[in-house]
């Protein structure tokens, strides 16, 4: 494999004495779109947070380009964009200020904020505090970042939540564009993704009651 970006190595996650997944290993290379599937409570969010280094697995490790992420934190985070259940949008700041701050933290390009906001249909709302926007518009502020992101690895926990249909389509096109350019996307979603099956890799988690 030429372009191995991220690999999970024997990950085990135990929550409240329940084994969510055990010795889970997989690899993510450039050009892959991975959907983590499973019913509610299967452990998707837990897996994504472990992959992003936000929580520690009970056992096993996560490697970024063959190196443990806790060793190469700075390089890894420079190459990672994570959007979780919480959007990371400050309700006091405007859409534009929020986006600029998030991009700067990530060493991303902050020219062309307006185009990015236009992509997520927030033209006209750039300067209103996020508190004045709807649930979906708040998620859109967080997602606008993706259009400016230079990082290869995108980890997205239910990115389509609260987004309307045209928005979902636009996001899907962006994902394809991203993996075509050598990136990878790891996401969860309970909605079906309209991307050709050959491009989509699935990781299925299930209740481990056996």
């Amino acid at each position: 494999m030429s372009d191995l970006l991220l690999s999970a190595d024997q990950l085990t996650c135990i929550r409240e004495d329940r084994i969510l997944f055990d010795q889970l290993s997989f690899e993510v290379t450039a050009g892959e779109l991975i959907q983590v599937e499973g019913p509610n409570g299967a452990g998707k969010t837990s897996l994504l947070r472990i992959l992003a280094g936000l929580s520690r697995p009970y056992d096993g490790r996560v490697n970024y380009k063959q190196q443990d992420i806790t060793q190469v934190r700075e390089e890894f985070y420079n190459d990672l964009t994570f959007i979780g259940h919480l959007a990371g949008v400050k309700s006091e700041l405007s859409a534009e200020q929020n986006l600029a701050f998030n991009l700067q933290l990530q060493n991303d390009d902050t020219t062309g904020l307006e185009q990015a906001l236009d992509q997520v249909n927030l033209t006209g709302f750039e300067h209103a505090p996020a508190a004045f926007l709807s649930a979906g518009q708040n998620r859109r502020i967080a997602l606008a970042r993706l259009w400016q992101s230079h990082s290869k690895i995108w980890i997205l926990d239910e990115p389509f939540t609260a987004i309307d249909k045209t928005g979902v389509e636009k996001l899907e096109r962006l994902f394809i564009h991203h993996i075509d350019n050598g990136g990878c996307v790891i996401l969860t979603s309970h909605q079906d993704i309209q991307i050709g099956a050959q491009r989509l890799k699935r990781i299925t988690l299930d209740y481990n009651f056996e």
Partner: protein
Amino acid sequence: MNQPLSYWQTFSIVLMRDLKVAVRNKGDVFNPLIFFVIVITLFPLGIGPEGNTLTRIAPGIIWVAALLSALLSLERLFKNDYSDGSLEQMLLSPQPLFIMVFAKVLAHWILTGIPIILAAPLLALLLQLETNAYGAMLATLALGTPILSLIGAIGVALTVGIKKGGVLLSLLILPLYIPVLIFATGAIEAAALGLPYSGHLAIIAALLVGALTLAPFAIGAALRVSTN
């Protein structure tokens, strides 16, 4: 990809953002100050208006009020960031955590410490503080309030993931505030009696240097643990 940010840029970006948020929430700028004023007026009301007693206890009251108003405003340091997910984003940023944390603490001090220092002379007037103790009061506040913000931030970082919030926090950090309180009031009382107080100030300054160097790392580590 853009040029990575320098330390200084990261610092100023985070600082400006926190100040912007506070200015939008107009209240954030004035409220710690007003709390300070109100707490100080509670004491004469509770204790009685007699001038002598007030003069005796004025340094203690001013410092206890400063401590409590720092405490009450601390919550906002990380709690809001935690509950809207932007703390998570900071932890996932390639920028060094201790710098971002340091900028946040500085913003907190600018918004609580400085107003308190500016208002203190007026309140000292209300409490009829000895005239020659004003200098010592200002000096101890200037050196001491940053320590309150720095140490307080450690406590907030530790409790940020916990629902209970407020009261647990005070339990954690008030004991750590005690040395500052003792030396600061000691200095003011010495000044009121016309004694030298540079020794006390030196100790507070030493505490400040210690807090400045160690606290940002402690805060960063605490954040990583409590957002797990």
